[in-house]
């Protein structure tokens, strides 16, 4: 790109309804895993084509092949009638194929603007035109209706906001074919709406969209057609008008699920944890209690201070005021170590940054919190190490060749299961789950919720943070709504409706990202 000024979206060359991209026997093998068995599928120009399937079904793999991130094992990809090699990302982009990947793959230390123009910076005589790029980037962002600043460092934004930037970035490059891999996993409802508006608008401009998601309602809201993958095979493609939720789930997992949200009500026991007027970085004056046998849900926008609140409870950050009481007695939680000793467990929000040791084996990741228990003196009992790991792998149906496979080789949802799974054998009394089902498929979600019930029945308490309202709504016995660092409302099980809760979480004024709440 020679100047930063560029047409947003070029006119597509094909009229709607014609085939723009066709897969013929596309196949991918990883060592130990046959991720995609030969697949035949045609995408029509300017359709929104949803792809669904359980964790590890091969969705992201398909996307990686189409965007030249990974080489295919065999098969052909026909782009506008001609075979395309798609050997490098560059080649895919030159054709007009872009993707917003499941994990944000941008440079966190660079500014939003620098990220948007990464690889095609505007320069004059070799000098970067920084100011011009920021201005240009801001124009594009504003035009898309995202309320985000272009000059801040990307890492200062929430994951959801980063995802929006990734989407914005993908639209500026003469895109004809745009793939979204679980884009809403980290988005708030409002951000998701902005994204949907963008997607519909792109479709109107003739762009073909692939949309991958585990959330059925989004698929029905957006898509024209939907394809289902199971174990690397294409099970079928349906017009959205001719199918329904139940059929898709059945196709995905080859069995039906009566009820995803499995909710058992227990009579709450003694108070485990109490926060009294707790303040810290990102939240202020929050009071709440968690009792044995109950799920306390925290709902709010991403950045509303929920994660900061729980990480402070957990000793990761210092509190600035207030008290933490454990079983009625005031405690000082100065480190994660203290928290764990008392009986807390935290499954954090970001699996890549906080949840996983990606380049270590699945088994080690699962056992990390319990090595003390499975070793006598300092020596680890390797038999126990194996049994414990295998038990969680089976429990959560983590799809991995062996417990020795590296965590990085698992699909996104299966990685998430490790983040949850590592605490299940720990025997904590209070479990804090921060966005536990991000990117997890329906079947496993149901399984995780059932495990919640099991933990409760053993007398544990749970704090559940979710930006996905149905999840907290259906599961939480007590539901607290956070807005800009404050606890603004509290509800019992189903004592308020969705609208009420949403309004409370959103409030009148929008938050400015990148700065303080």
């Amino acid at each position, binding site marked *: 790109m020679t100047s930063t000024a560029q047409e947003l979206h070029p006119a597509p060359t094909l009229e709607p309804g014609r085939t723009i991209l066709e897969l013929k026997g596309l196949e991918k093998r990883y060592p130990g895993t046959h991720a995609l068995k030969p697949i035949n599928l045609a995408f029509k120009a300017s359709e929104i084509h949803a792809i669904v399937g359980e964790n590890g079904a091969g969705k992201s793999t398909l996307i990686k092949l189409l965007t030249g991130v990974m080489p295919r094992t065999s098969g052909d990809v026909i782009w506008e009638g001609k075979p395309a090699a798609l050997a490098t990302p560059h080649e895919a982009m030159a054709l007009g194929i872009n993707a917003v990947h499941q994990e944000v793959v941008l440079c966190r230390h660079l500014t939003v603007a620098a990220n948007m123009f990464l690889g095609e910076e505007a320069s004059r005589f070799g000098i970067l035109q920084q100011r011009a790029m920021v201005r240009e980037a801001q124009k594009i962002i504003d035009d898309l209706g995202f309320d985000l600043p272009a000059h801040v460092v990307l890492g200062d934004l929430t994951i959801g906001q980063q995802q929006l930037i990734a989407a914005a970035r993908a639209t500026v490059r003469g895109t004809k074919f745009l793939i979204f891999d679980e884009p809403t996993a980290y988005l708030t409802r409002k951000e998701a709406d902005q994204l949907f508006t963008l997607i519909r608008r792109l479709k109107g401009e003739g762009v073909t969209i692939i949309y991958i998601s585990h959330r059925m309602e989004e698929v029905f809201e957006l898509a024209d057609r939907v394809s289902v993958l199971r174990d690397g095979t294409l099970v079928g493609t349906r017009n959205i008008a001719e199918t329904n939720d139940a059929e898709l789930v059945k196709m995905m997992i080859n069995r039906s699920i009566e009820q995803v949200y499995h909710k058992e009500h227990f009579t709450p026991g003694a108070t485990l944890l109490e926060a009294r007027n707790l303040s810290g970085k990102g939240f202020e004056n929050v009071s709440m209690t968690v009792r044995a046998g109950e799920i306390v849900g925290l709902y709010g926008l991403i950045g509303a201070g929920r994660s900061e609140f729980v990480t402070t409870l*957990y000793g990761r950050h210092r509190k600035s005021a207030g008290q933490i009481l454990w079983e009625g007695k005031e405690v000082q939680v100065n480190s994660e170590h203290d928290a764990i000793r008392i009986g807390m467990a935290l499954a954090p929000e970001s699996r890549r*940054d906080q949840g996983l*040791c990606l*380049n270590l084996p699945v088994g080690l990741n699962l056992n*990390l919190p319990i090595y003390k228990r499975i*070793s006598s003196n300092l020596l680890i009992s390797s038999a126990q190490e194996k049994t414990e790991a295998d038990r969680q792998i089976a429990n959560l149906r983590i799809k991995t060749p*062996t417990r*020795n*496979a590296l965590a990085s080789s698992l699909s996104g949802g299966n990685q998430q299961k490790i983040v949850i799974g590592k605490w299940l054998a720990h025997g904590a009394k209070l479990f804090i789950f921060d966005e536990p089902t991000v990117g997890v498929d329906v079947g496993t979600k149901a399984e995780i919720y059932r495990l919640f019930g099991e933990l409760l029945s053993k007398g544990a308490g749970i704090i559940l943070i979710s930006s996905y309202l149905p999840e907290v709504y259906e599961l939480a016995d007590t539901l607290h709504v956070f807005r800009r660092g404050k606890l603004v409302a509290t509800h019992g099980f189903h004592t308020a409706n969705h609208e009420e809760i949403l309004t409370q979480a959103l409030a009148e004024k929008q938050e400015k990202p990148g700065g303080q709440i």
Partner: protein
Amino acid sequence: MSTEAIPAERPKRNYNALFGLTLLALLVLLWIILSVATPSFASANNISNLLRQGSMIAILAVGQTFVIITGGIDLSVGAVVGFATVIVAMLINAGVPIFLAILITLLVGVAIGLFHGFGIVKMGLPPFIITLATLTSLRGIGLLMTNGNSISINNDAFQLFSRSSFLGVPNLFWMVILVGIPAYIFLHHSRWGRYLFSVGSNAEASRLSGVNVQRTIYMAYTLSGLCAAFVGVLLASRIGIGNPTQAEGWELQAIASSVIGGTSLFGAVGSVHGPLLGAFILATINNGANLLNVNAFWQRIITGVLIIVIVYFDGLRRRGK
């Protein structure tokens, strides 16, 4: 969803062992070639010599590997060796019993390691910087203490140790085994070993999982300092003097051995047997080159090329599989 295990070809599983075997094969191959090429190579005398040469770097490499696995680096080990020769020489010459002199020297190594841990954990200094600072200042302190002179150790029993053999194997090599076995158990079969890996892979995830990250870092540098001080004692015994400028550049040889042995400078990948083999491969090349009358300048070049080749192939296999 299908949970039946995917027919796995056991990826990565025996990777460590396999890589170790490849290195061992390389070492044996070098020995065979050198025995054929030069008759003096296979002599008992030369082999003992080679084992002695390799032993000290091997022990340094083990300590270094602990540090590198956590994602750090310890540039001070060469300087610690030199410094330790001075300490032990002074103590022995002052009439301190040998056993006590050695113990004190080892404690000095521990203290230096703790200091590194402190700099990294409490002061937030990058490992490269704090250990670089120790490297130069330790040499300086040693020179101050000795006025720039060597201290000859007047205790024959102390020197005899490194020159003698047990069961036909040089004592120095026994020391490698003495360090290697506990190190192996520690790294691969203890909780702390797992923590070294997890901290090197993702410190934040580790601390949220209850791993004491600070203590793990202290431990890695302390062990490295301890190994270095131990090597200092061995070196003093071998050459019979204490001199702070000894062991110049040994930190680089230790890092090279570790890396040849499959340790990743990005952290979270490494073993104990790899660096040991790496150290003896380097020693063999130096020894062989000497016997073949290869110019000493060339030896350095060969070592450099070897590092690139081995690490490149290791990386290829890791990625390729």
